[in-house]
């Protein structure tokens, strides 16, 4: 996309209009396009949302998956995993194949906002300490690319997470006693419950068994029942494009094509209503003066408060 020759006539027109505070689509420089959020759109997902930001259309789905804790230094913490797909349905510019640097950047920027705001309490995603934790997969699909994918994707990921329900887990312990080289299967049974019920591996009493003898553990989602997902501070992402010496909130595709660079800023608000910057990313090959950077963050802060009101529970 950045490989295209910049349409200089269009750029000039956009800059000239901006001189009088206007934009080609009739918005003011700080207006965000119309936003429509729908949650729980996919019944088979544990959480889901679609976001329309103007004509930009994004869907995000959440799935819980039980895994061995992937990081040895945090055996009791679950994992948040965000990925994004720029599928060819969304734009003539998108091609099939593994995520390119734009998709990877978007996923990582959204991930940082969610992660650094401490939205998700990963310590509560533990099923059996050191053995099984929940990985929360947030998968973002871009369906229609009409500019500002980062904000639309961040909003979709956030809404999907907020709508998520953590499944109750059926923990199956297959107790295996190792005697000599032959492993002898002793029994298999279910331990109902999940994190919310405070299940702990050590507490699982098996007659005559020691914890070292539990060799196989499988966790399945219980057929029924959910527990609330442990969510805390909510991150809101605002992206601005710099064109000439002007800053454009929520850039359209046309504006992105001619922009010098963009800046995305995520703000988190905790229980005490304390607002903090939690993530930031400059994109594109242009530059920002230090004054422009500070001004952009200032504008983003005001706009994030506006967006926060759209999120159910966002202003808590």
């Amino acid at each position: 996309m950045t490989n295209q020759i910049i349409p200089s006539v269009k750029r000039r027109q956009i800059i000239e209009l901006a001189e009088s505070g206007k934009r080609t689509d009739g918005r003011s420089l700080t207006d965000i396009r119309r936003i429509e959020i729908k949650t729980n759109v996919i019944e088979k997902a544990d959480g889901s949302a679609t976001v329309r930001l103007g004509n930009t259309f994004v869907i995000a789905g959440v799935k819980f998956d039980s895994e061995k804790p992937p990081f040895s230094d945090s055996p009791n913490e679950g994992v948040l995993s965000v990925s994004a797909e720029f599928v060819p349905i969304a734009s003539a510019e998108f091609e099939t194949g593994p995520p390119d640097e734009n998709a990877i950047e978007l996923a990582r920027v959204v991930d940082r906002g969610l992660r650094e705001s401490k939205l998700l309490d990963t310590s509560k995603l533990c099923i059996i300490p050191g053995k099984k934790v929940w990985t929360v997969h947030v998968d973002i699909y871009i369906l229609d690319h009409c500019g500002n994918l980062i904000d639309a994707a961040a909003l979709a990921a956030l809404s999907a997470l907020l709508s998520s329900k953590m499944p109750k887990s059926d923990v199956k312990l297959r107790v295996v006693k190792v005697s000599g080289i032959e492993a002898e299967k002793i029994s298999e049974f279910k331990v109902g419950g999940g994190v919310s019920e405070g299940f702990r591996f050590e507490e699982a009493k098996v007659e005559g068994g020691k914890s070292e003898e539990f060799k196989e553990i499988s966790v399945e989602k219980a057929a029924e029942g959910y527990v609330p997902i442990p969510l805390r501070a909510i991150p809101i992402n605002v992206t601005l494009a710099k064109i000439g010496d002007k800053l454009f909130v929520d850039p359209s595709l046309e504006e992105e094509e001619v922009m010098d660079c963009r800046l995305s800023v995520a703000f988190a608000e905790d229980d005490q209503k304390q607002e903090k910057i939690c993530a930031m990313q400059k994109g594109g090959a242009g530059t920002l003066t230090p004054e422009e950077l500070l001004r952009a963050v200032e504008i983003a802060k005001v706009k994030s408060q506006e967006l926060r009101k759209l999120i159910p529970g966002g202003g808590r």
Partner: protein
Amino acid sequence: MEKKKLITDDGIRYDGRKLDELRPIKFQIGTLKNADGSAYVEWGRTKIIVGVFGPRESHPKHLALADRCRIQALYRMTPFSVEEWKSPAPSRRETELSKVIRESLEPAIFAEFFPRTTVDIFAEVLQADGSTRCAAISAASLALTDAGVPMRDLVSSVAVAKVEGKLVLDVMDLEDKQGDSDMPMALMPSKNVITLIQMDGLLTHEEFIQSVELAKRGCMEVYAKQREALEEHFKTVSKEEA
């Protein structure tokens, strides 16, 4: 992992530095024979070698740009550069860093002088101890200069972190892991424009403004070291040619 106390009560950091002090930085220019331009940097324990090829014919040709030179950057970490073995396959992090490194250098290059060509920038992280993208950017701008690529300015980069409630300049790995925030920034020093800004962690608005200020000062110090290395390099080059 047990947390270490990283800053003493008198404001001295784990490795003996003051809060606003850079690690020892040593740039070496022209370290590779085959690359058109190269630079090696030792930035504390962070060690990175950067090679630049081009402007050269674009490959594949359809990626060539009609009005300017295509800039490509590839940031890679060797499997032995970190505590635990890192798979040599490119990670999502490396892909993102390659992109932001390219975008931080592109504004400094007169790309319009060489339409239809490509400049390749390869940064190999030999040892990582924090601030690798900043070290790679700073070294890459020297390698570009060494390759004779016309530049508007050098690009100087440094990261500011919040550690134990205090803002510190030039983040090392331990501080990054235990700290509350990390903010890498790159500056074209004589133009006073920012070409890279990223941030993660929690900062108040006021802390952010202070971080930018501190990063700017750090970038200027890196800039002085880059100029020193350039002068040193070209002194020896002119002697060899004489």
